[in-house]
């Protein structure tokens, strides 16, 4: 019940921030409109571009929202006040995760609606579930990347840091333009980036092609690394303050 209340009020607060809704929830749809539609020359390409921008939207919500929210909340006196209430430690964390899923669904929904209105996609019914699962599971390393940045950075620095991570990572991962269109040096680095591994998994589910083990294990490696870093910086932060 407490998780529901905290999640409800967290989502309510976010919905009341037009700047957040535009920058995080609407941007992927707008980017799809500008960058993807001109390149969606056939249903197959449109499908892959839809997957790219849906993944871009998920990364935006979980990495950007979690890092900025955590960095701001950890130094907020309201957060200290919440610690005086009879509230289990996991409630705040779980409510943050659920709100992330909520806004990811909104963002991906926006991309899907834009796709439906602007291009032709012929994705068979049975491919939608693997596609959504890939988005959800592939988004987890970025969620913990967001936690790590949020616990490691100060609130006044987090916005530029989050932007510096989120935007280049999306570009270099081939989420805005296909990997073969990237500059040579970026093409060389791209396969090692978590965003590219995420994109490869999403594209594979959409195209019903085989998932490559290096992408699955690579992303799993990043997940473990970011969990470790999140826990380390969380404990450091707790130790300093409390």
């Amino acid at each position, binding site marked *: *019940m*407490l998780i529901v*209340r*905290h999640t409800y*009020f967290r989502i*309510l*607060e976010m919905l*009341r*921030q037009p700047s957040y809704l535009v920058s995080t929830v609407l941007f992927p749809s707008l980017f799809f409109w500008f960058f993807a539609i001109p390149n969606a020359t056939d249903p197959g390409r449109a499908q892959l571009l839809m997957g790219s921008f849906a993944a871009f939207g998920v990364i935006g919500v979980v990495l950007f929202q979690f890092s900025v929210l955590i960095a701001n909340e950890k130094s*907020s*006196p*309201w957060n*200290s*006040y919440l*610690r*005086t*209430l*009879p*509230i*289990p430690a996991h409630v705040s964390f779980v409510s943050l995760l659920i709100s992330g899923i909520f806004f990811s669904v909104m963002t991906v929904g926006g991309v899907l609606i834009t796709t439906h209105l602007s291009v032709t996609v012929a994705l068979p019914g049975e491919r939608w579930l693997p596609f959504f699962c890939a988005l959800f599971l592939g988004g987890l390393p970025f969620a913990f990347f967001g936690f790590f940045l949020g616990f490691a950075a100060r609130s006044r620095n987090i916005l530029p840091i989050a932007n510096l991570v989120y935007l280049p990572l999306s570009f270099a991962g081939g989420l805005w333009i296909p990997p073969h269109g990237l500059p040579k040096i970026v093409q060389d680095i791209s396969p090692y980036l978590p965003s590219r591994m995420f994109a490869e998994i999403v594209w594979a589910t959409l195209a019903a092609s085989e998932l490559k083990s290096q992408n699955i294990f690579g992303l799993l490696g990043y997940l473990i690394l970011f969990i470790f870093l999140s826990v380390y910086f969380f404990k450091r932060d707790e130790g300093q303050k*409390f």
Partner: protein
Amino acid sequence: MKQIEFIDVSKNLSGRLILNSLNFAVSRGEFFSLLGPNGAGKSTVMNLTLGLRRPDSGKIQVFGMNPREKKVKLKMTCTPQDLSFPLLLTVLETLSLVASHYAEKKSIEELIELLDLKEILYRKTGGLSGGEKRRLGLACALIGNPEILILDEPTTGMDIESRQRLWGILKTLSAQKTTILLTTHYLEEVEELSSRVLMLDHGKTLFDGSVQQIKSKVSYRKVILKIVDLAVPRAKTLEHFQKLAGTHRVEDRDTLWTIWTLNSDLWLEEFFQDPLPFKDLIVEESSLEEAFLEFQKNAYR
């Protein structure tokens, strides 16, 4: 029964010793005020009591348990620090969120009435004035029906009417045996409300007792009179008062003179042997504020 207990508690923050083997206990129903200059350790005592910090050494118990226990948090509440609330939630939403943490709680309607929140109920907390935030903070603290209430400068920024109303609420709570731990800059508030005062300085206890005990320890009385012969130079009047036996300190503001003395009867007897022309003579007890300042001075002599 002891509800809050500090046993040899020391705490360093950023390499500075904030609390130095502090010992005190607060019993059920006490109205306990913490006094001391900035940096004396008052906020650290509050944070340790609330479980927001851990002591470096020593032990803190609330209801005989670690302050971080859920059972403690259900019965001990406070106002939010710096009166920071979620800026985009309304007053009602904020109260509703806080209320959801308690099984035995006051009704929101009762608090709206008690703290005059009706007018601001649907306003976002980001747009509230300082006084309105204080009222909301207090509502957050009261909603859990606490046995221990911790208040950090609850009336700063409040108008006189709101302050009087709050004093009434706190007196009622105290009469109902709620233990109250208070810090404030208004010493008249301490004098009006507290059953016990702990004076801190450099993380140590300077004094622990009732307001009356502080005042009796520093038992100066004030003789206040108005000199009417303006032809007498100020320096001469000052010298006249300073020469009188029993004069501890002399202050003047225009023609109004205040003389601190330990024995006002003896002082007056001497004064009347060769009085300066005066009118409106009154004798007063020192206020708590004066006693507090005097007590601090004496402590360092």
